[in-house]
Structure formats: structure tokens, C-alpha cells
């Protein structure tokens, strides 16, 4: 099979009836075999895409069903434009008059990850509220959800950014640029 055919060596002998060789040249078949092998090896995608599971809360039918979140257990992450990220502790309640101090963070290991990790260690009941602005990208959302998975934060929620928080974010974005 697929071997080099040797010629010669029989010369000079008696002329006898030529015996048909039983060997078949299988080189083309083997060539094709390897060609197919290469093709399938290269086209096969063995790796399935990764997924991230998200459970959103069931939309409450009315306001009464909603649980009030204690300000001491709240930690808000704001996603802004150009991959910028801000956070503040506590709740932002403009009617109460409490304006939290917004701090800027970053996506590195010492950035938001460390902050969230320290905050959840200090207070296991902490709920991280993720508020993405219209200017932020989908990548940022996945990144922050991934940070939640990395820091094994149990309680987090994607919350709509309201006007008060949007103003807070705008001011923080402007303040950081100075």
C-alpha cells in the first residue's frame, strides 16, 4: 500500500509470462484521504460558544410588590460613554436631598473589581445596581456582568438609568475630564 514501486532487478532472466502484480497503487486514494482529513480538521468547530446566564427579576405587576432597598445595602455602578465607569454607595434620592459622591473607576483588576469585592465583603447583603447609560456599549454591560461573576457577587440587578442618575453621570463625566 502506498509504497514506492521498485522497477528493475529482474533483467537478464528468462523470459517468462509476466505475472500481474496484485498490488494496487493506492497513492491517489491516500492523497484524497489526507486531503479530506485536513479539510475536516480545519472546518470543524469543536468549541461551542460560551454563554453567560442571566436571570432578570419578574416585572412586578404593581408598585406594592416591590421591595424597598435599604440605602445602606445599595451600591450603584454607572456605565458611561467611552468605556468609562463610575460608582457610588447608597441610594440617590433627590427628593430626600441626599446626593452621593460619585467616583470614577476603571476596568482593571484594581478598579471596579476590587471596589465591588471589598464592598461585598464588608456587607454581604449588598445589592449592586447596574445602570447603563444610552451612550455605553453592550460590551461594557457584558464586562460588568462578568465582574459580578468574577467577584461572585450574588445580588445584582440591571436597572434602568433614571433622570436623576443620568444627571449625576453627566456631572461626573464632566468632572473627570477637567
Amino acid at each position, binding site marked *: *500500500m*502506498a*509504497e*514506492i514501486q*521498485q522497477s528493475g532487478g529482474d533483467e537478464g532472466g528468462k523470459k517468462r509470462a509476466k505475472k500481474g502484480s496484485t498490488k494496487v497503487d*493506492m497513492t491517489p486514494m*491516500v492523497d484524497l*484521504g*489526507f486531503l*479530506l*482529513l485536513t479539510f*475536516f*480538521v480545519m*472546518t*470543524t*468547530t*469543536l*468549541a*461551542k*460558544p*460560551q*454563554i*453567560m*446566564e*442571566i*436571570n*432578570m*427579576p*419578574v*416585572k412586578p405587576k404593581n408598585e406594592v410588590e416591590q421591595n424597598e432597598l435599604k440605602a445602606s445595602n445599595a451600591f450603584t455602578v454607572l*456605565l458611561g460613554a467611552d468605556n468609562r465607569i463610575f460608582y457610588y454607595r447608597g441610594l440617590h434620592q433627590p427628593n430626600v436631598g441626599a446626593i452621593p459622591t460619585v467616583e470614577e473607576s476603571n476596568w482593571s*483588576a484594581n478598579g471596579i*473589581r476590587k471596589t465591588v*469585592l471589598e464592598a461585598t465583603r464588608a456587607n454581604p447583603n449588598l445589592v449592586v445596581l447596574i445602570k*447603563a*447609560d*444610552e*451612550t*455605553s*456599549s*453592550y*460590551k*461594557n*454591560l*457584558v*464586562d460588568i*456582568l*462578568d465582574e459580578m*461573576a*468574577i*467577584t461572585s457577587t450574588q445580588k445584582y440587578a*440591571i436597572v*434602568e438609568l433614571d433622570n436623576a442618575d443620568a444627571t449625576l453621570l453627566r456631572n461626573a463625566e464632566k468632572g473627570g475630564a477637567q
Partner: protein
Amino acid sequence: MPKVKPHRTSPSLDMTPMVDLAFLLVTFFMLISKFAPEEVLVVDTPSATTEIKAPDANVITISIGNDERVFFGVDDKATKLRLIDKISEKYGVGFTQPEKDVFASLASFGVPISQLKSYLALKPEDQKKVNQPGIPIDSARNELGDWVQLARYSNPQSIVAIKGDQTAGYPVAGRVIEILQDKNVNRFNLVTDMEVKPVIK
């Protein structure tokens, strides 16, 4: 004294085991490979450290492109056939059997229902040339919500996966999530790329 002749070995080599193995591998890869359906919308998913693999079957995929077009895809053929019947019932658009078959072969699509019939009537090579506008997601014409809902009715076991592009803006992704919540799909998946999990001290 006669010369010592070096022993000549035959250059022929028995390649049978190697060829056997090669064909075994060919068979293996032929059986295992599932050709990835042609992507109409190229999506570059963001990376995350999650290690959960996507399920094999019964997936409803909502793709969000970098140009913020939304595409919808169902992987199971039988589900798609049931889905198109439900859609034609709801929207009052009649589809012929060949059109339904074309629909069942689509991996994903992004045309409004009003244009779906004419899109399905096209030849496969012409379908590729069509610039699909994406599925309407605005509240006035929330077709994506109907697609998701009816696909879930067609196959209650199906799960929803959002395959968004990195550069897609949050508003579209947020709107898609909102639609899913409206349709009581509170558990869904985000398709991501692999990333090495960092060590937490």
C-alpha cells in the same frame, strides 16, 4: 577475500497503519462536524470568563449587529415550521409551502414581517444580496416580541440567547432585554467569547 556487501534494505515501508488511522480520523471528523450555518450578520461577541457552554439544541438566538440591526434565529426546523404558521395567523400573511420550507432553512433573518414573504420568494443567491434592515423592535411595531413569544409557544423548551456585538450600543441591547422581560422571558443567556478567569486573592 570477497567484498563485504552492505545489506540492502528495501526502501518500501508499510504505510497501512498510518493510512488506517488517517481514514479513521476522516470518518470521525466527517461524523462530528456540523457545518456552521452561514451568518448573515457578522457578530463579534465580547469576551467573558464564563465557562458554561451553549446548549446544543432548542436555542432562540437574537443577534445584535454593530450597526444595531437585530436578527432573529431559531435552530430547530420543526419549531420554525410551527412558528411561521403562527406568525402568518397572527399577521394575516399567507405563506405557500415552498416559502415555509425556505423559512425553515434560514439560520437567521432580519426582515420585517411585511417584507418576509417577498424575501422568502427570492432565490438563495439573491437573498444574500438583500440588505436586511433588521427586525423592528420599537414599541409601535414590536415584531421581535411576537417572534420570541410565538417561538416559545412553538417550542416551550427553547431558551433565548442574545448574541450582541461588542460595539453595539447599550440602548438596543437594553431594549431587547426589555422586550424579553415583557414576554416573561426572565432567564436568558448572553453569548460570549472565552477569556481567562483572573485569580481573586
